[in-house]
């Protein structure tokens, strides 16, 4: 499991050395990088730490320290630019297999730790920091909510190993009282249930699009140039899209959401 996490390899090709002035849990990395237009950006990743004091969060899961560590990192960036009109872009490198599952986690309030991260990313975006989530692996459930889902733009690398979902297949089958075969059969006709990135794209949630690279596990210099170029384009799009998440609406497969919004808004204003 640990060896396959892609956060560090992508940080290595996209950024310079990690920032050292900021004291963070060993599983959280913040590094500065330079985009295609020479604009600098902060890159943030969650990576496995085999010495994590919380044993249920050693394989790259987002746990207690990770949630609060992300919150600290993002608030630090917000503070750096507090007096500036220009807000430095934040790129979340996303390969998070899950949130941490354990007794310590529930006892000590992992829901609040993840809220710390969610709140920090949301505030950064709402204050004008362009936030882009770059999906290079798994983007699962609570872990993705805490690290990536508050971004202005979500970009996914186009690869079978890149997936977004609310729960792993085994647990989802158990909770919905289905077999894995039944679950897969249903996923084929119900796009929001599917695990693959093409179905996810059909929901309109990949505002930053899908991007092909040659080697997702060992990115080449060419791959990294391509990604930096794409991230730069996403930044330009961010300026048009504004600071809310409305650029995720508009797909046919999310038309019920648009309908709710339209109808409730009309009723809200009708006295």
């Amino acid at each position, binding site marked *: 499991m640990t060896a396959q996490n892609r956060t560090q390899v992508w940080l290595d090709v996209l950024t310079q050395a990690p920032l050292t002035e900021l004291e963070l849990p060993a599983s959280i990395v913040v590094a500065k990088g330079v985009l295609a237009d020479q604009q600098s950006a902060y890159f943030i990743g969650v990576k496995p730490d085999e010495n994590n*004091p919380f044993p249920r969060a050693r394989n790259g899961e987002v746990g207690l320290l990770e949630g609060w560590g992300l919150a600290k990192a993002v608030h630090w960036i917000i503070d750096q630019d507090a007096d500036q009109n220009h807000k430095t872009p934040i790129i979340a490198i996303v390969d998070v297999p899950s949130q941490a599952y354990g007794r310590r986690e529930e006892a000590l309030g992992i829901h609040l730790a993840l809220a710390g991260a969610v709140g920090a990313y949301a505030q950064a975006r709402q204050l004008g920091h362009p936030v882009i989530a770059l999906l290079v692996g798994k983007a699962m459930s609570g872990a993705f909510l805490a690290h990536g889902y508050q971004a202005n733009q979500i970009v996914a690398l186009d690869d079978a190993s890149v997936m977004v979902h609310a729960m792993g297949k085994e647990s989802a089958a158990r909770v919905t009282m289905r077999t894995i075969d039944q679950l897969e059969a249903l996923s084929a006709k119900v796009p929001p249930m599917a695990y693959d990135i093409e179905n996810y794209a059909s929901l309109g949630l990949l505002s930053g699009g899908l991007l092909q690279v040659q080697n997702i596990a060992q990115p080449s210099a060419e791959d990294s140039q391509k990604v930096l170029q794409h991230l730069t384009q996403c930044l330009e799009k961010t300026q048009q899209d504004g600071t809310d998440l409305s650029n995720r609406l508009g797909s046919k497969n999310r038309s019920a959401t648009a309908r709710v919004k339209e109808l*409730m808004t009309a009723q809200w204003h009708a006295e």
Partner: protein
Amino acid sequence: MSDTNQLLNQHSFVELSARQRIKALLDVGSMRELLGPFDRIKSPWLGLQGIVAQADDGVVVAKGSIAGKAVVVAAIEGDFQGGSMGEVSGAKIATALQLALEDNRAGTPRAAVLLLETGGVRLQEANLGLAAIADIHSAIVELRAYQPVIGVVAGSVGCFGGMSIAAALCSDLLVTREARVGLNGPQVIEQEAGLEEYDSRDRPFIWSFTGGQQRYTSGLADEFCHDSVEVIKDKIAHLVQSERPRFRSDQYEYFLTQLYQAGPEQATPERVRELYTNLEEQLL
């Protein structure tokens, strides 16, 4: 009054449906439901899976006032699909919060109250439920800068998954003894981590860590009360008028410091209360 008499004379909030809960909280005559069952905005996904959709998708949204203060209330019906967040139910809550935000930006103060009874994402609509929850999170963070966003977990479903994160983002959280608040449901933790880590059938064990009383006494909830319509109504009426200078979910320095002191041993409810003993002071 004796305990028995008190029990007989109180009106249970937990036993009320989502719509009845809102009606009980709002000032008489002020309730105006939005996107009610007659608008028939149902889940487009459940029917494809042989599950009967419900005309309000298990979420009730209403405008109104509480003790004269303008509010929007969104209530989740725990009896429909475990209170799970699907595309429509999630969008109803997100939109209600966004509209309250617009009111505030236009100079009309309006607070929000979320009655949370939910297992989290509706797995039959997985990725659209998750996306709606991200929208809800965003709206809470933006709205709480203007006006209180009050989370209420009364029971009996509790509040889990991405919606437990929503509860933790609220400016104020009210819980009862019947409530549980946690990220992961007990069954899933047991499946992922094993029986020794988390025994999903041991109810006293589960409540000792995630129950309303423990969450309140360890500082992770702001208000705690028994299951009574009158008491809950009073508490909320007070909360919608109050201002919170600091939010719990912004206290990363405090929590990192405390977590590094937690030590390698397995957690106990007593240890959690001890670690977070001065948490309330951080929020003043």
